[in-house]
């Protein structure tokens, strides 16, 4: 059986989540590997969410926020950018593949981009294979 990765998607309410909705309403096809959780802003994402997701069996984490400058709360994603960049460096130094965490800016009108990113990221995780380092063995 081919490897079907489990990907956690965390999307901001105002842009990426709406973008994902648009992808749905325009009937775009994209892989079903992403389970999307909605948060109010990308800066709501606690780095522990990401560590915990990997521990609970996620093979990849995809984070979506508004384009810099377009944040509903003006500056949320600018904080998130710095924070998530740091998270990536930490995962990398701990020995995980940094490619398992991806941050994308997807606006409410970019349904296409959402579908593309999910497709691309799913392929990327498929290439990386299952994430077994942080995963808690059942």
């Amino acid at each position, binding site marked *: 059986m081919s490897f079907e990765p489990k990907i956690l998607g965390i999307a901001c309410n105002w842009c990426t989540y709406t973008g994902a909705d648009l992808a749905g309403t325009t009937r775009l096809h994209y892989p079903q590997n992403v389970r999307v959780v909605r948060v109010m802003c990308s800066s709501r994402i606690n780095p522990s969410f990401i560590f915990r997701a990997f*521990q609970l069996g996620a093979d990849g984490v995809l984070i979506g926020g508004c384009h810099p400058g377009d944040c509903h709360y003006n*500056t949320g994603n600018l*904080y998130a950018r*710095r*924070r*998530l*960049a740091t998270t990536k460096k930490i995962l*990398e*130094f*701990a020995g995980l593949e940094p490619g398992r965490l991806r941050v994308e800016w997807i606006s409410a009108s970019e349904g296409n981009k959402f579908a593309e990113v999910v497709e691309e990221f799913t392929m990327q995780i498929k290439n990386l294979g299952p994430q077994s380092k942080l995963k808690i063995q059942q």
Partner: protein
Amino acid sequence: MTDFKKIEENLKTEAGRLLKEGLVTVVLSYGKGFDENHPMPYAAKTIADVENIVFNQYCNYNMARYLVRYPQGTKIAIAVKAADSRAVIQLIQEEKVKRENLVILGIPVQGMKNPKTGEVIDSKTTCGLYNPVLYDILLGEEVHGQKNALPYEVLAEYEAMDKDARWEFWEKELNKCIRCYACRKACPMCYCDPCFIDQSKPKWADKAPQSPGNMMYHLTRFHHLAGRCIDCGECSRACPVDIPLYLFHKKVAKECEEMFNQKAGMSIEDKPVLVDFRVEDSDKILE
């Protein structure tokens, strides 16, 4: 360099003067322990207490740890070595203490030793500075002309490792952890109450010292100290099972410096990098 005895004298004189003149209510410095090789952090509150102040090569504690114990507004004098002064600056940046409530007694010193191993503490496990960055009163001559390895040189070996080898290394090291939390308690920057690991809702990790919980605790702690760690090495010295925590902290500090162009605890004008942003920050850092 001014010798330890002289620094101790200066420390006593200044502490005595500050307490006598009523400029401060407490002097955070070093005091006698159960023997000479084991001094203790010490809070002198009366002129009589000043007698108990000592300073020798084993006084490596970062006294900034104790600043947040006192209510805001308390006038405090604090003895700091190079890295410790950076911790004070960082705490001022984070508004845990106010500059005007502090009298900073700077100690320029080199050759401090780890009492457990007897090893000299140098840039391998700390930031490798000898002179305090910020002080009101300097208790000795500044140390100059000392050749010193750069603080991040020690990382090269680990950065060169294959990611799987690095994972193996950290898994082995972090699984030694017995979760006594000496690292976070010794850390001047770890002042959260409650710490995320003590929360029960959400519960981030098991209480038992096992792999998933240990990973969660340490990775998150490294993240919480990103751009704030001033590389004093207290966590690693406090660790009873000798986990080289300083390596990870150094790496994160180095990355933050490269990404955000700012070193932690160097100026009280700065803001900690992760509670700050620049519109011109590049998306490249996310790649």
